[in-house]
């Protein structure tokens, strides 16, 4: 599996319509279910899992949040990216608003694929201009281009 599997227009939510953390997680869950047939009918499982995960300790820092969970009965890692242009209070570790959310769903058993995905995200999110560029995007294609360009070689 490579990150290219994730880089299609339906993996990007350009303008998250959400006023708080739970609404963001709901929008991400909706997008995940729409995108991956394997997640059909699992919207509430995903949403509840993400809420519980973030309640244990926010994954937000430096403008980026990575709500990620394990889910039973699936075979592969799934991911969507959502952008919140104004920024959201996400109880981030640095207290700063979060603008870009990568939501990663992975199988309960075995595979370490999700670590590759998290490392790919870390490589992108570590770029100092990533968040400001992502906020400026006006179409999904620009986000895909940005993610592709910043992907570690």
């Amino acid at each position, binding site marked *: 599996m490579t990150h290219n599997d994730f880089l299609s227009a339906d993996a990007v939510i350009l303008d998250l319509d959400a006023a708080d953390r739970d609404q963001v997680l709901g929008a991400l869950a909706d997008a995940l279910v729409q995108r991956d047939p394997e997640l059909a009918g699992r919207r509430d499982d995903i949403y509840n899992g993400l809420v519980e995960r973030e309640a244990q*300790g*926010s994954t937000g820092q*430096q403008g980026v949040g*990575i709500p990620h969970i394990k889910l039973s009965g699936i075979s592969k890692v799934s991911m969507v990216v959502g952008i919140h242009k104004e920024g959201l209070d996400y109880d981030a*570790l640095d207290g700063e608003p979060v603008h870009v959310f990568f939501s990663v769903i992975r199988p309960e058993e075995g595979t370490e694929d999700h670590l590759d995905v*998290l490392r790919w995200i870390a490589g992108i*999110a*570590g770029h100092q201009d990533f968040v400001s560029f992502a906020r400026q995007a006006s179409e999904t294609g620009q986000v895909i281009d940005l993610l592709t360009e910043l992907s570690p070689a």
Partner: protein
Amino acid sequence: MSTAEVLVCNEAGLHARPSHALVKLAGEFDAKIRLCLDGRTADAGSILSVMTLGAAAGSKIRIETEGTDAKTALVAMVELFQSGFDEAT
């Protein structure tokens, strides 16, 4: 540079709550704090970096600290690991 080795002794490994506690603690020091496991290195000040380490229960992690308060930071980090992040083990 100061270094120490610790075992991840809580059952679920370095998951949500421990990672959060660890990054918070790391943020209290000026020292650069790194976690090393299986040839990979994570910045203890970054939640995303710590999550990429994939440290399961029983992992042996080397902590490296560098900077003015490196020694104090190292002691605090070791204590956090040894406490099992105050979770049931």
